[in-house]
C-alpha cells in the first residue's frame, strides 16, 4: 500500500541551508546538497528546498544546489520560493527539481497555478498554504462569520482575509496536485501540528495533503497522520544537527501501525 511520506525541509538562503526563528537570526546549517544527501541516506521520502530569500533576480546559488542535489540524492525534490512565472518553474525543473511549490504567488495570481499545471502537469504543482487562526477580537469569536483559519502570505507577515479551507478547494480546482499546509500558529513552536486544520482540509480535497509546522518529535508525526489524516509530514529544524533522525521518526510511525518505507532492499 501507499506509504506515508516523511519530508525534511531545507530553508535555503544564498545557496546555504539556514535555520533560525523564521527569517531572523539565521544560522548556517550547511550545504543543501550535502544535507539532502544525508537525509536521503537516512530514508527521506522526498526533499523540499524552500528559498526563503526568494529573490528572483538571484537564483544562481539555488539552481546550482538543485543540480548538485539531483546528482547525489535520488529522491524527489520540491522547490519553493520565488517562482512567479511559468518560465521560473521551467528553470527550476530543468535544474533537476520534480515539483514546485507556489505560495504567495498563487494567492496573488491564482491563474499561475493553472498555467503551471497545464504546461508541466498538476503532479508537478504543489500549492503551499500558510494558515493561522485569527486572533479573537471578542468573546464571540469562533461562532461568527469569519473563517476558522485565515491564509497568510509573505512568510506569515501578511494576512489575506482568505478562508484557508475555501482557498484549499480553489487551489485544487485551479490545478494543484498536492497541498502543503503549514500552521503558522504552530510553526517554530514545537507544539505539534494543527491536526484540526489538516483534517478539515483533507476532508475537502481529493489530492494528497502534506502537514507542516510544529513538529517537535516523532509522536507529532504519528498524530499528523492518525488525527490529521496527512499523506505526508514535513519538518525542518528537528532533523538538523540530528536532533531526530528520519529513521527514528519512521520507526515511531511504523510502531503506531502507519505504513512507511523502512530501509532499502539494496545495500549502499
Amino acid at each position: 500500500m501507499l506509504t506515508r511520506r516523511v519530508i525534511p525541509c531545507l530553508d535555503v538562503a544564498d545557496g546555504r541551508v539556514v535555520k533560525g526563528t523564521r527569517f531572523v537570526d539565521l544560522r548556517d546549517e550547511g550545504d543543501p546538497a550535502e544535507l539532502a544527501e544525508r537525509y536521503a541516506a537516512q530514508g527521506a521520502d522526498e526533499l523540499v528546498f524552500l528559498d526563503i530569500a526568494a529573490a528572483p533576480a538571484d537564483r544562481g546559488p539555488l539552481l546550482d544546489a538543485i543540480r548538485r542535489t539531483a546528482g547525489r540524492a535520488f529522491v524527489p525534490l520540491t522547490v519553493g520560493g520565488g517562482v512567479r512565472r511559468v518560465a521560473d518553474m521551467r528553470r527550476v525543473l530543468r535544474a533537476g527539481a520534480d515539483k514546485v511549490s507556489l505560495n504567495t504567488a498563487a494567492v496573488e495570481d491564482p491563474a499561475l497555478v493553472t498555467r503551471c499545471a497545464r504546461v508541466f502537469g498538476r503532479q508537478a504543482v504543489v500549492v503551499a498554504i500558510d494558515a493561522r487562526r485569527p486572533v479573537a477580537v471578542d468573546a464571540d469569536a469562533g461562532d461568527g462569520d469569519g473563517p476558522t483559519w485565515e491564509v497568510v502570505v509573505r512568510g506569515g507577515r501578511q494576512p489575506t482575509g482568505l478562508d484557508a479551507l475555501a482557498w484549499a478547494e480553489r487551489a485544487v480546482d485551479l490545478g494543484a496536485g498536492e497541498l502543503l499546509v503549514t500552521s503558522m500558529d504552530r510553526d517554530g513552536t514545537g507544539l505539534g501540528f494543527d491536526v484540526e486544520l489538516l483534517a478539515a482540509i483533507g476532508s475537502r480535497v481529493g489530492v494528497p495533503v502534506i502537514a507542516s509546522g510544529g513538529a517537535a518529535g516523532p509522536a507529532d508525526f504519528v498524530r499528523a497522520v492518525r488525527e490529521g489524516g496527512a499523506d505526508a509530514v514535513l519538518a525542518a529544524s528537528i532533523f538538523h544537527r540530528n536532533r531526530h533522525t528520519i529513521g527514528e521518526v519512521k520507526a515511531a510511525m511504523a510502531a503506531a501501525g502507519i505504513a512507511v518505507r523502512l530501509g532499502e532492499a539494496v545495500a549502499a
Partner: protein
Amino acid sequence: MSERPNGHGPRVAVIDHGAGNLVSIRQGLAAVGAHPVLARRPADLLGAAAVVLPGVGAAGPAMARLRRRDLLAPLVDWLAADRPFLGICLGLQLLVDGSDEDGSAGLGVLPGRAVLLRGAPRLPHIGWNEVRLRRPHPAFARLPSPVHQYFVHSYAVEPAPGSEQLVLAETRHGRPFASAVARGRLLGVQFHPERSARDGLALLAGFVGMAATRSEDAPAATAPRPGVSARC
C-alpha cells in the same frame, strides 16, 4: 545541453520531448555506469544501445513534440526491432493505443489504454508504494518483490483484453494497476526509478545490464531468468 555526465558504459539515448526534469534520469543512468545522451532528433539515436523515454504530464503535448522532432517513426522502428527500451511514467503511457486523459493517440506499440485510477483514495497517486512482480525479469534481478518505488501519476496503463500477459508487476492504490509492463526487451514502468533511491538505481542498473547484452544473447521474452528473489 550537450553536457555529458560520466559513465563509460552503454550509450543510452534519453528522449527529450519538451518540458520537465531530464536531469534525474541522466544522473541516475550515469550513476549506474551508463553513458546517457539527450536525443532531440533521429540522428541522436545512432550508436545508442538503449532508449529511455521519460516524462510526466499529459500525453497529447508529448506526442505532438515527438512528431515535431521526427522521433515518432524512429521510436516505432526501435520498438519493432525489440531493441532495449525503458519507458518511464508518461513514457510508458505513450506506448499504448491512447490516453483517456486528453483523448490523444499513443504510439500503439502495446494494445491498451492509459486510464484514470478510479477508486483511488487520493489522486494524484504520489509517494512510495509496493511493486509486486508477477514473474521474474532481468531488470529486477537485484530487487526483492515487493519493493517500494516512487510514483507520481493519476493515469495507468490498462492492457487490452487478451494482453494481460504484458503486465510484469502490479501495485495497489484503491485497486491494483499495472506498475510495470514488459515484452521482449521493452520495459515500461509507471514509477520513477530515477527518484526511487538505491532500489530505483538497482532497477536502472538491471536495465542497463540488459542493454549491454547483445540481442542474440538476450533471453527470449518467456525464458526463465536467474537471480531473482521473489518474496511474494
